[in-house]
């Protein structure tokens, strides 16, 4: 009796090798720190999904174990945890890297050890150039720019102003927007920036207002900055069409900015935000609604796009393991690369050896805030 208790304790502590076959999946996510608003829903999502999967019998009857560490957004910690996951916990694949910095640190460890790795961060550098074992689920910021420019072009405007945060997200998107703006025949007539901790952006917005011929305004950034920009925009009585980025695609943004100020703001978002109003027959409707309902029931907090990235990463990975019929990292990698038409909350994924993102512009929906709620723009 005593021995069994001791053995059970040891097993719980992970000190002995369990006799049962199990599939060990690792995650290094920024559940705390500056990127916690991204990482927190991601951890909760993974925990929820693993529980649901095991309750439904796991993958081909084998239980899935999730081992996750909180890297706090620190790339140095992320690298240590990635090493720990591979060397000590012997996982078959890694999900994570909430931020681009953490992702880039994990990436080299995963590539060296030849372990499949699905990142939850935005930057295009993660999958360009393509690395054999690295995949990612969120759109790139370049795609967000393209989606916005498409919409501006369709509305017949040409002169665009930009006000960007100097945080990693804002600065990266600013650079990407500048790189592709020429493709759409648009002109950047004003280019302002603010620090993520600034409490007032009236000065920059006034400058933009006084710029000759501005027809549309874009605000790359995430966190609280865009909410303040939106408030200031309303206070100054600006009326030019206003675009936010996918970085603020959550209800928290509307709450912070205020429904009045955010009225008419457009942004490229995912199906998840508008799951309720997606038409019957929309490919993403079922999965987006199912995830939204389950997440909100399990956590009591509204679903966010960022958790959706983790949802899709888990979906891609478990789908690949099931198809591979093996837990060999190489087999899993090959199966991920062969993923075709897998519908997730962010978009429909089709990976190829040259494309480890697997999404195109159609995955983004142009959303507009009306009376404090998300609507789709057709």
């Amino acid at each position, binding site marked *: 009796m005593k021995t069994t208790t001791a053995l059970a304790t040891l097993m719980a502590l992970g000190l002995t090798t369990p006799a049962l076959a199990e599939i060990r999946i690792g995650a290094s996510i920024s559940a705390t720190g500056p990127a916690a608003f991204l990482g927190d829903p991601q951890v909760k999502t993974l925990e929820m999904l693993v529980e649901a999967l095991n309750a439904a019998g796991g993958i081909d009857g084998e239980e899935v174990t999730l081992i996750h560490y*909180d890297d706090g957004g620190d790339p*140095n910690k992320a*690298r240590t945890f990635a090493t720990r996951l591979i060397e000590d916990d012997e996982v078959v694949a890694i999900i994570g890297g909430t931020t681009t910095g953490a992702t880039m640190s994990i990436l080299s460890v995963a590539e060296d050890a030849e372990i499949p790795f699905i990142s939850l961060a935005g930057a295009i550098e993660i999958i360009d150039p393509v690395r054999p074992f690295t995949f990612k689920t969120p759109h790139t910021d370049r795609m967000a720019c393209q989606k916005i420019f498409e919409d501006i072009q369709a509305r017949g405007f040409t002169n665009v102003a930009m006000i960007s945060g*100097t945080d*990693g997200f804002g*600065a990266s998107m600013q650079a990407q927007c500048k790189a592709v703006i020429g493709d759409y025949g648009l002109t950047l007539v004003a280019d302002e920036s603010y620090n993520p901790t600034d409490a007032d952006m009236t000065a920059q917005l006034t400058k933009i207002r006084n710029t000759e011929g501005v027809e549309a305004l874009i605000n790359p950034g995430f966190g609280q900055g865009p909410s303040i920009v939106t408030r200031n925009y309303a206070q100054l009585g600006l009326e030019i069409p206003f675009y936010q980025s996918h970085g603020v695609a959550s209800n928290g943004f509307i709450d912070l900015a205020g429904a009045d100020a955010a009225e008419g703001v457009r942004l490229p978002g995912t199906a998840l935000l508008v799951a309720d109003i997606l038409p019957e027959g929309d490919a993403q409707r079922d999965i987006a609604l199912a995830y939204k309902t389950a997440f909100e029931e399990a956590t009591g907090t509204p679903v966010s796009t960022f958790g959706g990235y983790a949802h899709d990463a888990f979906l891609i990975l478990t789908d690949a393991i099931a198809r591979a019929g093996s837990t060999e990292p190489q087999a899993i990698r090959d199966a991920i690369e062969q993923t075709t038409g897998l519908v997730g909350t962010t978009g429909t994924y089709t990976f190829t050896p040259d494309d480890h993102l697997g999404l195109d512009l159609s995955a983004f929906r142009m959303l507009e805030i009306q009376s404090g709620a998300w609507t789709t723009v057709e």
Partner: protein
Amino acid sequence: MMKLTPKSATLIVLVALIALSPLLFPSNFYYRVGALIFVNAIAVTGIVILTGYAGQVSLGHAGFAGIGAYACALAPVHLGVPPALAVVLGAVLSGVLAYLVGRPILRLHGYYLGVATLGFGILVTMVLTNERALTGGPDGIEVPDLGLRGLLGDLGLSLSNGQFWYFFSGLCMLIGAWIALNLYDSPTGRALRALHGSEVAARTVGIDVARLKLRAFVISAVYASVSGSLLALQNRFVTPDVAGFMHSIEMVTMAVLGGVGSVLGAIFGAAILTLLPQVLTVFAEYEQMVLGLVMILVMIFLREGLLPSILKKLRGKDE
């Protein structure tokens, strides 16, 4: 039998720890933890020279680590120098900057150095974050391979990445500790300790207080820079976090926790504070709280730091 000097004893203990610890490693992951301990220990040894020997406090040493780290990321790409030389370049740059910052300030008494270094560290972080075109901004930048592991492989000594960095950082830490221990017994070291005890008395016996403090500051900046370089080369990726305020505080905390007056104590502090977060992953949410609590307890009950206090207890030299 010849009696061991404290210096040789410290070095022998360190060599034994570095060589024998791998025998107890349950997996290759622990090489990574070991390498991190050694890299941190190098920076903390610099703090021992500055704070333990000379009695000065710096709150911006991570700024120098940032310079060392980004030197390894940028110099090979933009100047075409090999990464090993970039380490030296970063160290020289850090030393020169420390000289320029320290020279006017170390003529003053009090906490001016602490405040100035605090500002310096923040400035470095801001430059690294905002000069996106050069540094890659907050998302960070890739660092080229040192190339030494491949070279060893060609010579028939094939090590895994983790093993290589464990032994290489260990060797660098040994050299750092050896220099610091030599400095302790040198005329400079004695003069530093004298001015730590009493600046007035030191000046009376003819010690150039400002110049010596400056020398200690420059040396410790070079230690921090080398530590940052090794971290960047090992991680193959670096973000402005390496120069961040929290990293500066971490260095000082490691030194104070282990015992800022002794090299071995400081290394012990670095080991504990590097290991704790790995042990505490289960309580990740309470990690900072536990660290804070440990710090408070050490400051109240073991003022000289963990290792010196424990050794004293063991020798039964109660005061």
